[in-house]
Structure formats: structure tokens, C-alpha cells
């Protein structure tokens, strides 16, 4: 299972599917007047448009970090290496397109800390000069190559921050993708059918939502182990109840609307009513919730990682970066760049997401609009 998840063909296919279906949804929505209006409303706000482009940039980085390939291994003479027994070509573990792009920087390892764009190491070292021992900063192996400095074991901080984008985006998007179908299906069914179905679903919802989210995620991760897929799954399960309640309420209201009543009176089967009349009319709520929640999921990752229930320590994320860097602030002299980089990159995603989310909400749901 994990093998398949980690294999590149699976990831490439998944990313391809996601992109294609995303484009298809956008094309479909463009045909509808309601969404076109909303689009124009969002476009009217300059801030929102800028934020949208920032988000696109992040998504792009995440995408090229999600597709990848494996290279064949070569020995010193440039010959392809083959398995001595089977004669098959041997491949390395592979890397994403971003890994290949960044190879130039990420392979430039230093010994330890160096400040941004520095030409010399940050740490003093003992140097023997003319029989005297001095402590001075030795020159770096790759002076000026590290835009945002290097960390304790000499890894480029900028590369780490870029690699963290994918983790953040995966958590934000996958969690929503897992929670939305559940919430949509159950919420609409619960509101439309009412009766026993509604009672049972409501009960399940109230049970699930009374477990504090952190504790639920914590026990989930404890039982299924730490990792990105597990985290997304746990957060998805923990977060569908809010949207479910919202959709149930909206469906209850829509059920009484004349156009739904008319459809029912004309003998349209209930699944068709749901699909053609109810679901399209609650989609704006789904979108608003998804966009607004995106940022909180990204933030939650950092907190959960600190608590030891987030992604494992072998996955680079802003949470792990902040967690590593927090003691560096008390160093003397202070080392600020790793913490600040993680903070800035995270803010760079979350802030536009929040602003854009506000704009989308205002555009789609005038009732909720704040002045």
C-alpha cells in the first residue's frame, strides 16, 4: 500500500487526474451565469486577484514537486549500472521535477550554519596560522549560493521551504477533497429525506464532533502511525461535520422551495431532484467552506507536527522547520533565517488564502457579505 503510494507512476497519475478534473470543473462552471457573475465580482477586487496569482504560484510549485521520475544509476565511467544477477538496469529512488530543478542548489551542502547570501561560515572554527590558533569563520564551499542561508547540518533553507510547499498544499487540498464528498452526500441526504436517516446521521455527527479534533487526530495517528496520508485522512474525517451541518440546514430550506416542490410533484425521482436541483444550489457553500478552511488546515499542520502527531520527521514541512528552528532563536549570536523563512513562506500561503477566501465568500453569498 505504502509502496504504491510512494511510487512515481501513481503520484503522476494522481496529479494528472487532479489537474484534468480541476480544469473540467472550471470549464463546466464557466457555462453558468451564476458562477460567471461571481467570477466577475472577485475580479473587481485587485487584492483578491493578486492573492489568486500568489496561490496559483504556490500550486504550481506543489504540482511540479508532485510529478517525478527515477533516474538510472551510472557508475564512475558513465556506464549504466546493472543488477549483477538479473541484468536489469538499476534506478535510484527518484525525485520530483522540483528536486531535479533544485539539484543545483540542494547539492551544494555546507558543513553547518551560514547566514543568507553569506560568503563565510557562520560558526567560528579553530584555525592554525603561523603556530597560533585563531578562531575565525572559514569560507564556505559555495560562497553566496545560499539565498536564505543553511541550517545546522548545512542544508539550503530556501530549498527546504520550497519543498515544504507541497506538504502544505497536499494537506490543505487532500483534506478538503476527503471531507467534501462525505459532507455533501450525507448532509444533502440528511436534509432531504429527514426522518430516521436524518436522526441517525445527526447522531453520528454529534458523536464525532464531540471528540476534540486534536485528540481525535492524535489517537488516529497513534493507531495508524505518523505520515502525510494518515494526517490528511484523520483531518478529513475530523472536519466533515461542520460542513455537514451547514449543508443539512441549507437542504432543509431548499426542500421547501417551489422549484423543488414542483419537481417532486411532477414525479421526478428523488436522486434526480438531489442531483439536479439541490446539489448545484449548495455548491457555493461547499466552495466557501473549502476555501476558508484551507488556511486553517495548513496552520494546523505546523501545530500538530510540533505536538508530535503531524507528519513524520522525514517529511519536510513548515511545521518541522519551525520545530527544528525554535531553539535557534536563543542562540548567541542569534540564528533567525530558518524560522523566519518558514514563517514567511507559510504566511505567504495562508494570508492570500484567507483574503481570497473572503473575496470568494462575498462574491458567492451576498447574505454573508460583511458590509
Amino acid at each position, binding site marked *: 500500500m505504502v509502496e504504491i503510494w510512494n511510487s512515481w507512476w501513481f503520484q503522476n497519475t494522481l496529479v494528472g487526474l487532479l489537474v484534468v478534473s480541476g480544469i473540467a470543473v472550471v470549464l463546466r462552471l464557466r457555462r453558468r451565469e451564476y458562477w460567471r457573475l461571481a467570477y466577475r465580482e472577485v475580479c473587481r477586487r485587485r487584492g483578491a486577484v493578486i492573492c489568486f496569482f500568489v496561490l496559483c504560484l504556490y500550486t504550481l510549485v506543489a504540482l511540479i514537486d508532485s510529478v517525478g521520475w527515477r533516474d538510472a544509476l551510472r557508475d564512475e565511467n558513465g556506464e549504466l549500472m546493472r543488477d549483477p544477477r538479473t541484468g536489469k538496469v538499476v534506478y535510484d529512488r527518484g525525485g520530483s521535477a522540483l528536486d531535479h530543478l533544485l539539484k543545483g542548489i540542494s547539492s551544494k551542502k555546507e558543513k553547518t550554519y551560514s547566514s543568507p547570501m553569506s560568503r563565510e561560515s557562520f560558526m567560528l572554527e579553530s584555525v592554525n596560522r603561523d603556530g597560533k590558533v585563531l578562531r575565525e569563520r572559514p569560507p564556505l564551499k559555495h560562497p553566496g549560493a545560499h539565498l536564505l542561508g543553511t541550517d545546522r547540518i548545512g542544508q539550503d533553507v530556501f530549498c527546504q521551504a520550497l519543498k515544504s510547499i507541497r506538504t502544505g498544499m497536499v494537506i490543505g487540498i487532500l483534506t478538503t477533497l476527503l471531507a467534501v464528498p462525505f459532507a455533501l452526500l450525507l448532509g444533502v441526504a440528511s436534509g432531504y429525506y429527514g426522518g430516521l436517516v436524518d436522526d441517525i446521521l445527526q447522531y453520528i455527527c454529534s458523536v464525532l464532533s*464531540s471528540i476534540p479534533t486534536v485528540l481525535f487526530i*492524535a489517537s488516529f495517528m*497513534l493507531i495508524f502511525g505518523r505520515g502525510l496520508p494518515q494526517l490528511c485522512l484523520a483531518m478529513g474525517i475530523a472536519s466533515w461535520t461542520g460542513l455537514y451541518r451547514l449543508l443539512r440546514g441549507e437542504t432543509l430550506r431548499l426542500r421547501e422551495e417551489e422549484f423543488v416542490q414542483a419537481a417532486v410533484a411532477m414525479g421526478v425521482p428523488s436522486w434526480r431532484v438531489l442531483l439536479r436541483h439541490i446539489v448545484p444550489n449548495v455548491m457555493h457553500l461547499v466552495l466557501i467552506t473549502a476555501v476558508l478552511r484551507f488556511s486553517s488546515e495548513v496552520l494546523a499542520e505546523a501545530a500538530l507536527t510540533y505536538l508530535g502527531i503531524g507528519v513524520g520527521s522525514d517529511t519536510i514541512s513548515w511545521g518541522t522547520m519551525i520545530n527544528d528552528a525554535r531553539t535557534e532563536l536563543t542562540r548567541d549570536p542569534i540564528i533567525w533565517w530558518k524560522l523566519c523563512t518558514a514563517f514567511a513562506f507559510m504566511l505567504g500561503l495562508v494570508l492570500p488564502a484567507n483574503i481570497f477566501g473572503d473575496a470568494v465568500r462575498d462574491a458567492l453569498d451576498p447574505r454573508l457579505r460583511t458590509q
Partner: protein
Amino acid sequence: MLAYIVRRILYVIPTLLGVNVLVFVLFFLVNSPDDMARQALGEKNSDPVQVERWKEAHGYDVPLFWNGNASGIGRVTKTVFFTKSLSMMWGDFGKSDMTHESIGDEIVRRALPSLCVTAPIFLATLLINVFLAMLVATARGSVTDRVTQFACVVFMSISTLIYIIAGQYFFAKLLRWTPVSGYLPGLDCWKFLALPILVGVISSLGSGIRLYRTLFLEEINKDYVRTARAKGLPEWQILFLHVLKNAMIPILTNVPLQLLMLMMGNMMLENFFSIPGLGGYTITALNAQDFAIVRSMVFLGSFLYVVGLLLTDICYSLVDPRIRLG
């Protein structure tokens, strides 16, 4: 009124039972006692004799649901479900898997430090947020309003971790106002609590002000406010007497939600500031993979939430008669 409260309390029981069953499913069916023993003993060390001994030592050696070997009521009571899961309903949390200490005692011991952090944060947050949101709401549409709203979004976009780290750096290291971390029982605790409380309040400012501002604006646009204005009532009276009173209803519903959010902040704060509270207990148990403690804390957390919700509903029904009659 009494009938409503009784009905509401009765509804708590099936919810808690549901939580109990869910916890049981997660901790005993998905991850069976055998798995637990294997995890505790080491992955490859699944020598069946050792697994049995571990289970016996920790009281997991009985069947999950139905004990055919026992007689009478023991068929139900001598089961893992009854002794390990259902017993939590009446406050019997059992013993830790690792240290064999009584979890109930530990919860009682740690409840006070936790409360000392959570309660002031909760109260201060509510007061400050309502007050500031009120100020912003009076200046709606102005530059101040827009700047504040943007500032709120920025505040919301910053991770709690950053608040804590920055708070420790500025207040403890640079300004030397408080100790970096630690805790002492008794009255001495205030110097340790000041910083976590401050950080807790600041980190909730962004979302708090935004939420309350929306609530106030919704109220301000209502007809009765227009009537009051038309009557010539002074603005402050409208705001503080009429709007606040009505806006407090949705704020009240927010109380258990807030408590829930504080659990999360609590864990972080307690862990960062080394406060021996319930959050820190959970984190230690998580890192030690102590299933018994995590199980108990999940149930305790849900219990608190359900009770919080119940209290809110009762308060709500006191304020708004439509609820209990409807």
C-alpha cells in the same frame, strides 16, 4: 423549562455512549490488544507467550464483548469493553499501560494547572475581543475598520507556534518579565502563567475580533436598532444596552466551541511552557504510546465538550424563550 433541561441532559447520555463505542472501536477493534502488546514489546518480538503475559499484566486478557467462561453478570462485566471502555462513563479510567499509575488521580492532580491556564485565557479573550470588536464595529466602513480587518487576517494567518516562540523570545529573554518556562503549585504559579496567558490571548485576537465584529454588524443592521436611533437614543446606549445584549446570544453559543479550541492551544502552551496540566499529560502519553491515557483523554475531552454544549443550550434557553418552546 425543567422538562427542556431534563430532555437535554438525557440526550447527553447516548452521545457519550456513542463516543465511548467509537473510542472502543478505534482502540480495541482497529488496534486489538494483541497489536498493542506487540507494539509495547517490540515489533518482531511477537512471541505469543510474552504477548499473553503482557495482556494479563494490563488486564486485556479477557474477551472483547462477551465472556463465555464467566457466569452470571460476569459474562458482560468481565470483558475488555466493560472494564476498559464503558467504565470510563462512571469516571473509572483505570491505570496507565506504562507506569501503572492511576489515570483518574493524575487527571485530578493536573486539572488545576490546566484550569489556571485555560480559564484566564478564556475570560480575557472574551472580554478583550468583545470590547475591541465593539470599537471596530462603531467605526465601520472607515479606514480604521479596514486596517483592523486586514490586521485581523494577518493575525489569523500566523501559526500559534510563532506566537509562542516570539512571546518567549521577547518577554522572557529580552525583557526578563517572566521565567522562560516552568510551573510551581500554589500562589507562586502566577509568574509562570502570565506569559502563556498573554500569548493565548494574543493568538486568538485575529479570529475573535473578526467573528464578533460580524455578529455586531448583523445586529446593528436590524430593525430595532434603526427604531432606537430614530427615537434619538444615544449611540452608546444602543450599542451597549441593545446590540450587545442581543449579540451575546450567538457569542454564548460560541463558548463551548471556544473551550474546544482552547484544548488545542492548551496542549501547545502546556508543552512549550512545561505546565503540568492535562494537555502536557496527553502529549507525554502520545509520545510514550500509552494507549490507556490517550483513550481516557479522548473520552474526557468529549465529556467536557458535551457538558459545555449542554450548559450553553441551557443558558441559551434562559436568554431566548423561543428555543425551549420550539
